[in-house]
């Protein structure tokens, strides 16, 4: 037997004598040459599994047609379709199947896209069919929707064997057509149309494109599902979209692309962005979604290369995520990595880009001259002496220097920021045969931070394969190994370097060769101030994180029957992390280390997952049933070790010869046991039902509370499958769906229910340490899962073959039993709070996504827009008046900036309201009493008092809610298109209606005490400069003008051109042909512009997480910021950088 695929073309018509066509098609006429382009993909990507015993070949063909989109055409007189065969097909391509069926017979088969033509050896030259039936002659022209002629369209009289195909001009002519018969026009990639002939002898037809996405398959957790059958809220981003716009992390790749997911980039290279699916679902714990990579939970996805990603699915509603039970409350992100293809060919892809990043905006700070003026006013107004340096500005900046202080004008921001490189190189290799498929890749990513002293490098390697051991047994594996090195953003005194840069004095040099270590800092005596030198902090101090990750899965699948599979999967996620901090001996004139400090900290994180899954999958007539039963266990452990000590030399930076050694370590373990069942049922592909139940048992909870159950149910109705809509050709998709489910969150500590003794404190008796043991928190044996109940209603709508699509979702998520650190009075004497299931919170909202697709011959365009609305409200805390305050920081006004109370959104900004500036002593006396207020100070509003009424005194009772960091809505627009060989992507992303607490403004305009400041302070109030909104400059801020107030609350709305990419695919010249299959070059810009009213560095403000490895030996201890309830406070966080890059993608 011989097979032939796309190389078989015939310019002439295929004459048919008597072909029997299965299904409704009678004849298929195919002009192979025009269609060959589409064929390879489907025939290679579609794999079938079925088993038939003692069936006719015709039955086999029908089965194939039922399982796939293939349609058969053959001559029943030549091919014995009644011949009985037995056949077992398991996940095989059509080629392999046809080879089996036709193996011994002397037949050709030709696959042209979805059409399979079977011919015998002798029927190559068929003649035009001539029939002597009576009827009219019908002629016409077939065109596409842009008016272009469509050659090769098959035109068949329905129910007969009478047919033809259109010629090069798109015209056809058909004889002997009976009146009132129906003409069927079909063409690959176009939607088949049926036209009643009536008495017309001329029928012109416009064929519409068939939606490409209509049979897309999406990962749904423990399986895949046709997109059309999905009843939950699932958003997909495919690998092509991810690779189109280069990004440093997987999370960034989904930013703005889909509804219901907010991604906020956070800080330095190699740090994870903050991802929230449908709002912030937890108060005490990070509301990160669960990441599942190739079916197995991953603890951290920063080590994965985005080039290896086949697709990312985000499960947003409870009916989709409930299969992940107790870890699913904050959404689930399913990541599928690439596999090889069974096409027998070797594919090599090289993907490489390089670019430069820079800071888009810096603040206007005082220069030396302005600083002297400002500093003089600030101190003089407070009755303080002016720093002695001010009168000695003509001194050299250090002994022996020719430059004087007056001549020095250091721009500390310019010193701190730089143009930084970003570079990514990847190569992948994939191949496959009937038995095995392989995918291998290697990548190297190298990014310098825009802040000096920060960088991230990652090398990764992947090998995925799958093998058919026998007809019933298949096994496969994925394996990723990656190593990364991060030069961390450092900080001292609990203060970010951006803060130090803002506050550093312009007349001081960065470097000073007379100082040990070479860096220079302010001297609080002669300079009257003490910011740390940020360049010293970044360059002289070392803080690195090296990690290596081994992430692999191994699976084995037994086919028990055609409809029943058993799969067992083992997954290992092993991460080894080494943090190293070294601070040498130095003296910058203010801060000094008399001995070097060095510390090393290691973590070995291991997650072992073991899953056994039974899948039943069968179609009975109109009924489709998919049932899974899963048993799973996930064991997690962390081994931690920490050693720190002092060294008397800078020559050695390792843990040798240490004095003052401190060492500790711990072991953390937990185990999750799970049982899961799910039923998906479809009737006529029209009524969809999904029901699931998961039971999770976790070691994190006390006996009696270990087990939780998480049910879900959802329904879908594909209205377009109903008779009344089926013939409305303009509506291609209308699906209504609704779901409900219950989810859990078990992010709590591994042993939180157990009260234990802490043996880690000591005291000094007679100059020697004596160990102390105590307990510091109340244990709560009643701790149970945080549970969420979520309802989701959605509609999917498509028109004109899904050229236009629209999806709308509404959801309501009530999170109950929120585990909160019970806001406790300090008088009970515990330093750490007890945790209890006391909170209740609601997240609700809507999401809309519209898409428009235009596929012309030369111009192709895809437009999509999305908007997500989430509202948050705290419904319950430990008691009616309980407050959870956060954000305290001495440098930012010394008040907590957010408050979480019942009835308000989580962590709302909380502070005073300003009411202008006191212009005179009379106004001060007349206004509400503000101790220490003077003319030029800010008047605050008297809103309340101890009895709930304004009491004429400005105090902490007058604080009120000042807005939320949560946007009213977030949105994105995405345009991607191509014209001839050019392709374009423009991606806008924005948020609207959120507030930012602009901490950088506290630094630039707060005037708490003498530091460098923003140029705005030159406009500070004085009796002669009364028309200003900047209060008087007075050191010590006696009126607390810089207290937390609406003065520093700014709109956080922004619209940003997140990415703009232009690519060009180079035409293949003769010499490249055969060697290279395509080369695309592109240029891309990220964060090219931002429209915002925010006056800080960057409105994309993440959460500040203080560095635990801050500098011992320097000052600090300024706040209790934990990073959880501090979202939207700009403490001087690293801004998103602007990136310009160019890249090349080569396919061999």
């Amino acid at each position: 037997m011989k097979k032939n695929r796309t190389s078989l073309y015939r310019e002439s018509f295929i004459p048919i004598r008597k072909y029997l066509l299965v299904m409704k098609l009678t004849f298929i006429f195919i002009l192979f040459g025009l269609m060959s382009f589409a064929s390879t993909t489907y025939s290679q990507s579609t794999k079938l599994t079925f088993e038939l015993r003692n069936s006719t070949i015709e039955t086999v063909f029908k089965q194939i047609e039922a399982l796939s989109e293939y349609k058969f055409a053959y001559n029943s007189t030549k091919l014995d379709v009644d011949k009985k065969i037995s056949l077992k097909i398991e996940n095989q391509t059509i080629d392999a199947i046809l080879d089996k069926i036709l193996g011994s017979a002397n037949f050709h088969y030709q696959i042209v896209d979805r059409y399979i033509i079977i011919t015998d050896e002798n029927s190559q030259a068929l003649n035009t069919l001539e029939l002597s039936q009576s009827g009219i002659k019908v002629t016409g022209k077939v065109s596409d929707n842009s008016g272009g002629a469509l050659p090769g369209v098959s035109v068949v009289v329905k129910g007969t064997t009478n047919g033809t195909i259109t010629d090069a001009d798109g015209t056809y002519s058909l004889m002997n057509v009976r009146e009132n018969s129906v003409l069927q026009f079909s063409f690959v990639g176009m939607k088949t149309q049926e036209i009643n002939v009536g008495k017309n002898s001329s029928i012109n037809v416009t064929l519409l494109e068939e939606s490409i996405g209509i049979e897309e398959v999406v990962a749904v957790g423990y399986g895949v599902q046709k997109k059309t059958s999905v009843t939950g809220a699932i958003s997909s981003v495919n690998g092509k979209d991810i690779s189109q716009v280069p990004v440093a992390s997987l999370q960034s790749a989904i930013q703005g692309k889909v509804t219901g997911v907010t991604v906020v980039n956070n800080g330095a290279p190699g740090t994870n962005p903050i991802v929230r699916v449908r709002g912030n679902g937890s108060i005490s714990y990070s509301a990160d979604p669960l990441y599942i990579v190739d079916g197995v939970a991953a603890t951290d996805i920063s080590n994965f290369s985005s080039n290896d990603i086949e697709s990312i699915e985000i499960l947003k509603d409870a009916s989709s995520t409930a299969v992940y039970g107790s870890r699913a409350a904050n959404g689930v992100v399913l990541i599928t990595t690439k596999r090889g293809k069974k096409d027998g060919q070797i594919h090599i892809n090289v993907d490489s880009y390089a670019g430069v990043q820079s800071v888009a905006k810096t603040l206007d700070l005082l220069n030396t001259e302005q600083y002297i003026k400002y500093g003089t006013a600030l101190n003089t107004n407070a009755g303080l002496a002016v720093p002695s340096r001010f009168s000695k500005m003509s001194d050299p900046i250090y002994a022996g220097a020719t430059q004087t202080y007056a001549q020095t004008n250091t721009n500390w921001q310019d010193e701190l920021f730089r143009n930084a490189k970003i570079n990514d190189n990847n190569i992948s290799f994939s191949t496959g045969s009937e038995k095995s498929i392989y995918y291998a890749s290697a990548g190297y990513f190298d990014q310098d931070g825009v802040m000096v002293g920060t960088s991230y490098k990652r090398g990764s390697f992947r090998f995925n394969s799958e093998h058919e051991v026998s007809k019933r047994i298949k096994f496969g594996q994925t394996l990723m190994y990656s190593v990364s090195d991060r030069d961390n953003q450092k900080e001292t005194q609990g203060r970010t370097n951006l803060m130090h840069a803002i506050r550093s004095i312009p007349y001081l040099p960065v470097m000073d060769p007379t100082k040990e270590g070479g860096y220079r800092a302010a001297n609080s005596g002669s300079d009257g101030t003490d910011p740390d030198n940020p360049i010293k902090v970044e360059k002289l101090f070392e803080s690195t994180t090296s990690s290596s990750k081994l992430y692999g899965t191994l699976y084995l699948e037994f086919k028990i029957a055609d409809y029943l599979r058993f799969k067992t999967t083992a997954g290992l996620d092993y991460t080894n992390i080494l943090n190293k901090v070294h601070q040498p001996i130095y003296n910058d004139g203010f801060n000094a280390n008399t001995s070097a400090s060095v510390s090393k900290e290691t973590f070995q994180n291991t997650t072992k997952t073991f899953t056994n899954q039974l899948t039943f999958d069968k179609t009975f007539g109109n009924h489709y049933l998919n049932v899974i039963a899963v048993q799973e266990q996930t064991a997690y452990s962390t081994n931690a070790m920490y050693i720190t000590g002092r060294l008397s030399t800078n020559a050695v930076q390792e843990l040798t010869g240490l004095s003052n050694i401190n060492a500790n370590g711990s072991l953390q373990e937990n185990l999750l046991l799970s049982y899961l069942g799910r039923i998906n049922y479809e009737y006529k592909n029209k009524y969809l039902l999904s029901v699931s139940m998961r039971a999770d048992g976790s070691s994190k909870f006390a006996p009696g509370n270990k087990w939780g159950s998480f049910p879900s149910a959802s329904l879908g109705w594909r209205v377009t499958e109903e008779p009344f809509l089926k013939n409305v050709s303009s509506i291609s998709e209308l699906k209504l769906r609704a779901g409900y489910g219950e989810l859990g969150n078990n992010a709590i500590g591994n042993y939180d229910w157990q009260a234990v003794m802490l043996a880690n404190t000591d005291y000094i008796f007679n100059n020697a340490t004596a160990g102390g043991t105590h307990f510091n928190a109340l244990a709560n044996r009643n701790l149970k899962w945080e549970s969420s109940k979520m309802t989701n209603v959605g509609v999917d709508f498509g028109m004109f073959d899904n050229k236009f699509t629209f999806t709308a979702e509404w959801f309501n998520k009530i999170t109950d039993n929120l585990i909160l650190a019970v806001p406790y009075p300090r008088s009970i004497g515990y330093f750490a709070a007890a945790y209890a299931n006391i909170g209740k919170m609601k997240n609700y909202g809507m999401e809309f996504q519209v898409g428009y697709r235009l596929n012309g011959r030369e111009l192709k365009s895809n437009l999509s827009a999305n908007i997500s609305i989430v509202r948050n409200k705290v419904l319950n805390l430990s008691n009616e008046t309980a407050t959870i305050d956060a954000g305290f920081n001495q440098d930012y006004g010394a008040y907590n900036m957010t408050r979480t109370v019942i009835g308000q959104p989580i962590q709302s900004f909380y502070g005073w309201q300003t009411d202008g500036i006191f212009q005179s002593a009379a106004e001060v006396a007349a206004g509400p009493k503000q101790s220490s207020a003077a003319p030029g100070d800010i008047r605050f509003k008297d809103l309340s008092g101890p009895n709930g009424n304004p009491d004429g005194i400005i105090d902490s009772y007058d604080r009120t809610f000042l807005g939320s960091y949560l946007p009213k809505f977030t949105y994105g627009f995405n345009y991607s298109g191509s014209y001839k060989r050019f392709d374009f992507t423009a991606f806008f992303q924005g948020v609207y209606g959120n507030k930012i607490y602009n901490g950088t403004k506290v630094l630039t305009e707060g005037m708490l005490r003498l530091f460098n400041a923003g140029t705005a302070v030159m406009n500070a109030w004085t009796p002669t400069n009364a028309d200003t909104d900047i209060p008087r400059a007075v050191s010590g801020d006696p009126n607390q003008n810089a207290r937390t107030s609406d003065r520093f609350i700014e709109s956080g709305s922004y619209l940003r051109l997140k990415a703009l990419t232009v690519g060009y695919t180079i035409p293949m010249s003769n010499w490249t042909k055969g060697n290279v299959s395509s080369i695309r070059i592109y240029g891309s810009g990220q964060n090219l512009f931002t429209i915002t009213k925010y006056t800080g560095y960057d409105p994309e403000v993440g959460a500040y997480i203080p560095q635990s490895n801050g500098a011992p030996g320097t000052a600090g201890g300024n706040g209790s910021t934990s990073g959880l309830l501090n979202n939207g406070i700009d403490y001087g966080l690293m801004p998103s950088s602007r990136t310009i890059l160019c890249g090349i993608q080569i396919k061999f």
Partner: protein
Amino acid sequence: MNIIMKKIHIKVFLLLILTSSLVSCDFNLDKVNPNSVTIENFYQNEGDLTSAVNSVYAVLQDQRLVSREWFFVHDLRGDDMATGGGQLETPRYQLLIGTNDPANSVASDVWSGCYAVIHRANVVIEKAPGVASIADAKRGQLVGEAKFLRGWAYFELVSLWGGVPLYTEYVKDLAGSKARATVDEVYASIISNLQDAIAGLPASYSGSDTGRATKGAAQALLARVYMQKGDYALAKPLLKSIIDSKQYKLVANYNDNFLEETEYNAESIFEVGFMDSNAAFSWGYNNGDGLGQETTVHNQEISPISWGNLIPSQKLLEEYESTDVAGNTKTDPRYKFSFYEVGDEVASGPLTLASFNIASSSVRGGAAKKVGWRKHTILYKNVASYYPSGNNERIIRYAEVLLMMAECQNETGDSEADVLATLNQLRDRASVSMPHYPTANYPTASKDARFKAIAHEKRVELAGEEIRNRDILRWRKQGKLAILGGDPITYFAANKFELLPLPQTEIDNNVNVGKGAQNPGY
């Protein structure tokens, strides 16, 4: 079965083994924290109970208390201190100028620290009777230490905040928080704690126990407590008992009370131990559990070449007798022991004006001059601009006992001679050798005149030692500040500044305290 199939089956078998060996099947959901002992398994023997008592002391080292915020709260509310410049951080500056409110972090931290002492002491006191293998005397001593520390903490609280929630057992669930007790109830509890401590504690320790609370410490503290209540007659016998014990004496060199090398000397009655850790300090709030907190930043905060955040107030400098002022025959040597000026000798040689890291100037001899603290600094041996030190903080020393005694004697009607006999012991210290009272500037004929002399001597002797704040509170309450020339706190307003405001977190989250329970004026 042919050979190929057999091979395949072997492969599958191997695969199965590999798969299952990756995850050892573990179905045990009962995981016990491997990093700690449970509460139920602790408090078994002498070692456990000693360790539990040590954890009470450990809170003293926390930066909420003696290593940082405790000395700030007292210094800033007294009149011994002024700001060294604009670098004094906002919540501290607010305390200094009286603009602090219930959210003030320095005061809130001292509050939390005191209650942590109380909680841990309560645990010891409650668990001690159940400890099986321990001698009764040892048990009594350990409980005595816990009661001493509990009494110390409550005295801090009652003297700074007034009637505070009173816990005599440790809190077992969150509903166990208490309402404010009355001032009298808190004092009654303190007195009972210290009486028990006096009964249980030994007169002294040796070796590695040096530094534990002694009977003398409990007596001195109880004397302070009685005096603060105005019960001078009750304080006097306690002080007499300390003096008569001959356990303590004034050391010849005044400065030995502030040096790291002369810790636990004969004058020291109770001190908080610190140890040099190469400038390491646990900045940030490590819950008092960190291993690193063995140092104090007292040196760092006030040393004139370090941060110089606080300097002596002008009034304090002027309190010292000086031959510049008519009637004084000698300049008090304690001035030089307490403060640094340009030219004073430190470890690196004479201090230069350039080395002063403080912006503010004082007036000396009619001219502006930089003056910074010497007491509590370690410049005598270490001139690093950054150095949290290991210098112990002397909480009670014998000089204070004598000064308290003199005041009690004066208040209870002892003769001028008796009062002066006590008071002049301080002037007789070898390194001080000041002329005896009465002097031209300090006549002692009347009770009030003697009070003025005692107040002067106490202020000079104990300058910057966190005593003055409470003295002002006491004397104000007893209407004695007029004798000293009026209220020394410039911002003072009645019905407000007698007490600190209760921390806002306590008002918000202690349902038994509630909104209306704030101190007046806040």
